[in-house]
């Protein structure tokens, strides 16, 4: 059995027994990246030297008999939305192409404290806005199961690198489905924790009331291992929950007796691909055979989730992204060319005696902001900033933003009512398996609708997990489990039960065996 076939938990045992070293594991990851990432495009930055040096240090400490952290020697990939001190953190944007953060995100600090080996930064839709990783300013990520298909998004790189066997543990972020949907499309397991479970300090903000950092891996066990290393209260994030994290890995093998699963009636409406529907139904049969009770349940406002989300998320984004002004960090336009153009515009307006044109003409500073942002942001980011600015502008605030906040409450109340009757909600992650690259790029609304089953968990703040439950034409299909806030342990135990009874999570794309 090669290192490649082992899960992270199994690799930990090999490391502890001395049968392998962190350097060997890191080299195996780098070899897999070298073999396949030119086709997959999962990584934006691979820290070869830094990873090997960290692995050597951890091996030396182990040799010396020193106590080590819970991820001791395991390589981990980090989505390029989390600040890594001195290492590029681009968010998939030209705006931050040359940005080197002066500090680490709390999650990155915790990975270091746990003695993980940070192997590199993964590709994503620009500022985490998108569902296909095609909005990255640098490269598209290709699905390891079918290279002409997307890996999903926005954490497409984070999911694809696990699917392609480049690394076992990966950190993503999820604002409306950005961990769960790429996990589904790439056939891996991904968890969006409850809002507040994992620190957002050092996470580049997209929509602050919805963003959450979470783990991706092949198995629920490995997800539990990684969540345990990063979850918990952080005084530097005032919205992180001041309650201890659970012992996710220690509890995972305890089966849930009398598990009550609720199937969301609205998730089986029109638009759901028949193959996805079939796989989800088969998964329910598996759970029934494990003793779970399955009942139908309604989330009456779920059909409004996408509309609500696409008011709230862009509104928060338009405010958060106001910081990219070309002054403190990030891209700035060619100042001399900009000033020259502005002066000639002014001269033309003066010669024409155009008083109104002169009154409306940008100041040099405002033109610098506008030009820098126009050149630094891609089309989807501009669209969201425009949408959010519109929704928050005078005359529209009540009709859009305030209305959406009220519907958000109704969506949360639906969950609260459902969780009085059932322990977990179960259904599809995404209406279809992975779509082709380029298929939806000209149709923003259709791209937004892929968040249909995932966005409501972010709006409500509940936990959601995606795990592989089938395949259609060689493409993986994901099953979504949702749990009440802070019931991650329950979610992971339920996912583990399923993975003990099935082997969808153990399937590997053909690409993996061609090395």
């Amino acid at each position: 059995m090669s290192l490649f076939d082992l899960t992270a938990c199994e690799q930990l045992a090999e490391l502890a027994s001395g049968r392998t070293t962190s350097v060997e594991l890191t080299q195996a990851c780098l070899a897999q990246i070298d073999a396949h990432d030119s086709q997959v495009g999962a990584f934006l930055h691979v820290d070869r030297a830094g990873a090997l040096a960290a692995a050597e240090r951890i091996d030396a400490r182990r040799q010396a008999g020193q106590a080590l952290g819970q991820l001791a020697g395991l390589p981990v990939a980090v989505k390029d939305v989390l600040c890594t001190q001195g290492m590029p953190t681009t968010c998939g944007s030209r705006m931050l192409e040359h940005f080197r953060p002066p500090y680490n995100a709390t999650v990155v600090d915790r990975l270091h404290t746990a003695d993980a080996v940070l192997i590199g930064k993964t590709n994503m839709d620009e500022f985490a806005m998108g569902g296909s990783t095609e909005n990255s300013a640098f490269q598209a990520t290709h699905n390891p199961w079918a290279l002409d298909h997307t890996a999903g998004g926005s954490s497409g790189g984070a999911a694809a690198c696990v699917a392609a066997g480049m690394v076992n543990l990966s950190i993503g972020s999820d604002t409306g489905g950005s961990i769960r949907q790429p996990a589904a499309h790439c056939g891996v397991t991904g968890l969006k924790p409850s809002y507040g479970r994992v620190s957002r300090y050092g996470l580049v903000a997209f929509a602050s009331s919805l963003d959450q950092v979470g783990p991706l891996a092949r198995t629920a066990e490995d997800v539990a291992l990684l969540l345990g290393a990063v979850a918990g209260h952080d005084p530097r994030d005032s919205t992180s929950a001041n309650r201890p994290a659970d012992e996710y890995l220690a509890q995972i093998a305890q089966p849930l007796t009398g598990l009550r699963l609720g199937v969301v009636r609205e998730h089986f409406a029109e638009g759901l691909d028949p193959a996805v529907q079939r796989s989800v139904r088969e998964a329910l049969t598996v759970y029934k055979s494990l003793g779970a009770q399955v009942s139908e349940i309604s989330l009456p406002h779920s059909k409004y989730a996408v509309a609500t989300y696409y008011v709230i998320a862009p509104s928060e984004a338009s405010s958060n992204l106001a910081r990219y002004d070309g002054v403190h960090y990030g891209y700035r336009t060619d100042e001399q060319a900009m000033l020259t153009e502005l002066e000639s515009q002014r001269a033309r307006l003066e010669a024409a005696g155009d008083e109104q044109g002169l009154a409306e003409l940008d100041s040099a500073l405002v033109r610098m902001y506008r030009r820098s942002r126009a050149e630094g942001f891609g089309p989807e980011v501009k669209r969201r900033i425009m949408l959010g600015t519109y929704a928050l502008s005078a005359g529209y605030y009540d009709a859009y933003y305030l209305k959406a906040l009220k519907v958000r409450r109704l969506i949360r109340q639906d969950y609260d009512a459902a969780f009085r009757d059932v322990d977990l909600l179960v259904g599809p992650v995404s209406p279809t398996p992975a779509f082709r690259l380029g298929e939806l790029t000209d149709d923003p609304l259709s791209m937004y609708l892929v968040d249909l089953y995932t966005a409501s968990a972010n709006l409500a703040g509940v936990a959601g997990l995606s795990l592989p439950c089938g395949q259609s034409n060689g493409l993986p299909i994901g099953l979504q489990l949702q749990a009440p806030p802070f019931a991650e342990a329950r979610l992971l135990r339920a996912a583990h039960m399923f993975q003990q009874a099935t082997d969808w999570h153990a399937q590997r794309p053909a690409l993996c065996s061609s090395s």
Partner: protein
Amino acid sequence: MSISPEQVLKVSRLARLELSDDELATMTAQLSQVVDYVDQLSELNTDDVVPMAHALDLTNVFVVDQVAESLERSQALANAPHADGECYLVPAVMGD
């Protein structure tokens, strides 16, 4: 179109963005499409619903007001597109 090009232009100024003529046309059509979709929220009666800005009911999270280490100026300026070692530099804000 539920949104006019003039409105889009106005919003682009508020958002400190510049749009080319092509972008303006595309943006007007795409924003209209999304806003039309979002308008389905108006079907719902939300008169008695309290807005929910946040998933956690947190109020007033306090921290002890203590002096702590912060970034060195050189680190804070390291990513600036234009700086003189002491300050961020921007185009002249005051008149000539």
